[in-house]
C-alpha cells in the first residue's frame, strides 16, 4: 500500500521546518551557538523600521529553526519525564576566568613518605571508650585525648622530682607538641613560598628579616638615627631629595611656573583654590552666629 500521498497531505497541514541557505550554517552546539555568514539583504536594512524589524525577525526565526533542527536530531536521554539532548564539546575557544591551578610543592613529610613508600590509610575518626562504653572522637570536641578524659591518677616516674606537679607536666608536653607542629607547618609554608619565588629558603628568610629590621628602625621617634648599630646591618635606602640645578634651561622653568599659574587661573575640578560652596557656607555660618 502506498502511503506517501497520505503522508504528504498530513505534512502540508503544518508549516515547514525547511530553511534554505546558500552557504551552510556553522554550528557550535556545545555552546548552543550558530554562525550564519550568508549575505544579508542590504536594502531591507536601509528601508523603514517596520520592514527592517520584520526582516530581522524572519532571519532570526530561520536561524533558530536551523539550530532547533540540529539540536532535536542529537541523541537524547530521558530523565525526570523530559528529554535531554547530549551536546558535543564546544569548538569555539573562549578564555578562562583564572589561570590554570599550579601544583603545590610537596611538604617535607610528603617527600619522606613518598621516598619510603608510606601510603595514607583511611582510619576511623572515632574510637571505643571502654570506661564510658561510648564511641568518642580521637581528638577535638569530646575527644579521648582531652585532658578531662585522661586518667586522673598519674604515677610519678622514679627519676622525677617528687614535688613536681605531674598534671602541669602533662599540659606542658601537649603544648610543646602543638608548638612543634606549628613550627613545622611554618617551615613548610616558607619553603613553599621560596620555591614559588625561585629563591632559597634561607635567602628569603634573610630578606624578610632585613625588611622587618628596617621597619622597626623607622618606628622609633628618631627614625633609628640614635639606635645602636647591629653587626652587618643593611644600609637603609630611602628617597633622596633632589633639587633642580640653580642654573638651568629657562624654558623648563617657564613651563613649570606657567603650569602652576594656569592651574590657579582655570581651577582644576579637583584642586580648585577656592571652594565656592564651602566658602559660602562658612560665610553664612558666620552671619548666623553674629545675629545670635
Amino acid at each position, binding site marked *: 500500500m502506498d502511503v506517501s500521498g497520505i503522508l504528504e497531505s498530513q505534512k502540508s497541514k503544518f508549516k515547514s521546518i525547511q530553511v534554505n541557505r546558500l552557504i551552510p550554517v556553522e554550528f557550535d552546539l556545545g555552546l548552543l551557538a550558530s554562525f550564519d555568514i550568508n549575505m544579508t539583504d542590504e536594502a531591507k536594512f536601509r528601508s523603514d523600521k517596520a520592514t527592517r524589524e520584520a526582516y530581522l525577525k524572519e532571519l532570526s526565526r530561520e536561524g533558530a529553526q536551523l539550530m532547533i533542527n540540529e539540536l532535536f536530531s542529537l541523541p537524547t536521554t530521558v530523565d525526570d519525564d523530559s528529554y535531554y539532548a547530549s551536546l558535543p564539546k564546544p569548538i569555539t575557544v*573562549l578564555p578562562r576566568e583564572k589561570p590554570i591551578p599550579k601544583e603545590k610543592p610537596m611538604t617535607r613529610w610528603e617527600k619522606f613518605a613518598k621516598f619510603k613508600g608510606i601510603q595514607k590509610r583511611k582510619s576511623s575518626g572515632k574510637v571505643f571508650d571502654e570506661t564510658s562504653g561510648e564511641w568518642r572522637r580521637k581528638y577535638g570536641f569530646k575527644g579521648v585525648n582531652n585532658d578531662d578524659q585522661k586518667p586522673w591518677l598519674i604515677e610519678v616516674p622514679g627519676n622525677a622530682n617528687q614535688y613536681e606537679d605531674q598534671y602541669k607536666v602533662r599540659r606542658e608536653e601537649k603544648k610543646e607538641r602543638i608548638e612543634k607542629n606549628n613550627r613545622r607547618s611554618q617551615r613548610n609554608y616558607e619553603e613553599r613560598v621560596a620555591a614559588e619565588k625561585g629563591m632559597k629558603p634561607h635567602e628569603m628568610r634573610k630578606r624578610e628579616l632585613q625588611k622587618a629590621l628596617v621597619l622597626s628602625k623607622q618606628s622609633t621617634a628618631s627614625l633609628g638615627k640614635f639606635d645602636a648599630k647591629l653587626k652587618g646591618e643593611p644600609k637603609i635606602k630611602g628617597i633622596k631629595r633632589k633639587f633642580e640645578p640653580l642654573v638651568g634651561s629657562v624654558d623648563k622653568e617657564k613651563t613649570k611656573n606657567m603650569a602652576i599659574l594656569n592651574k590657579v587661573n582655570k581651577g582644576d575640578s579637583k584642586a580648585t583654590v577656592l571652594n565656592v560652596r564651602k566658602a559660602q557656607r562658612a560665610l553664612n555660618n558666620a552671619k548666623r552666629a553674629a545675629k545670635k
Partner: protein
Amino acid sequence: MLTQPKAKNARTKRFLTNRDPKVNENVKTAIFVRGSTTSKVIQDTLKDLFALRKPEAVNFTKKNEIHPFDDETGIEFFARKNDSSLFAVGMHSKKRPHNLILGRTFNYQILDMIELGIEGCTTMEDLKTKACSVGTKPLMVFNGEGFNQNEDLIRLKSILLDFFRGEAADKVSLKGLEYVITVTAGPLGPNGEPGLVFFRPYTTVFKKSGMRQPRVELEEMGPSLDLRIRRVRYPSDDMMKMATKVPKELKQTKVKNISRDGMGDKYGRVHLGKQDINKIQTRKVKALKKKLDDKQPASKKQRTMDVDSD
C-alpha cells in the same frame, strides 16, 4: 616572618577555596556598573541585561566614577571584590551618548572590552511580552558575513558568546530551550568598518510540524538594541595565550593508531604479528602433502621389533 593566610572558620575557608583557580571553572559572574552619568536608555539596558544574566550577576545600583578605557583600576577592583570576570558598564556623555562597555577580565585584569553606542533600544517593559524563566541558557545565532571578516565584530562575537554562555553543560533539556539571542551585523561601511549591530532576544514557541523537529515561532522579548561599535580594546597576546591554555586534566588522551578524517570517519590501524608461511592453510593439493612414505617405514620397524620381543 611570613604569616600563613588562614581562614578563621570553615565557612570562610569554603568561600576562599571556591575562589581559587580550578581545572573546571565556576560559571563566570557578570557585574553591571553604572558610570557617573547615565541616561534612561542606559539604565534600562543594564537592568534588562542583568535580568537575562541572572542569577550569576551582580547589579550595582549606585553611580561610580569609572572609565575602563582610561583607567583600568576601578573595574579591576570591582572584579576582584565580586570574583567576577565579565562586566558591563553603562554611561552617558555628550561625546559618547548612551555608552555601553562590555568586557571580560582574566585573573582580575582586563582582558578585552568593547564600547558600544546604543542607537535604538526597546526594553522588556516596552514590549510587555512573556519573558523566559530565570537562569535558562539561550540559543545564540550570529547572522551576517561581518562576523567572519571584521576584527571588531569577531571580538564582539566572542565577548557576547562568553557573556551569555552560562553554565557549561554536556546535555540540555529540549523543553528548556526557551529563548534565542540573535545578533545580526548590518552592512559594512564603505571602508569595511562595521555598521549597526542588531541585538535581539526572542522567546521561542514550538509548534507541531508533523516531524520530530518542531516548527519554531519567535516572539520579541527585549532588550532589543541597535549597537554601534566605538572603541575596542584587544587582549595582549601573552595574556590570551595564558587564558586559552587547556589544563592537562582536560586534554584528551591521545589514542594510538586511531585517526579521523574530515568527514568524521574513523580509521584504525591494526598490527598483526609476523606471518608464518609454513603454517598457512592453503588449498589442499596432493602434491604439497607430506609424503606418507617417510613415516611408514618407522612404524613398520616398530611393529617388527614388537614381534621380535614376543
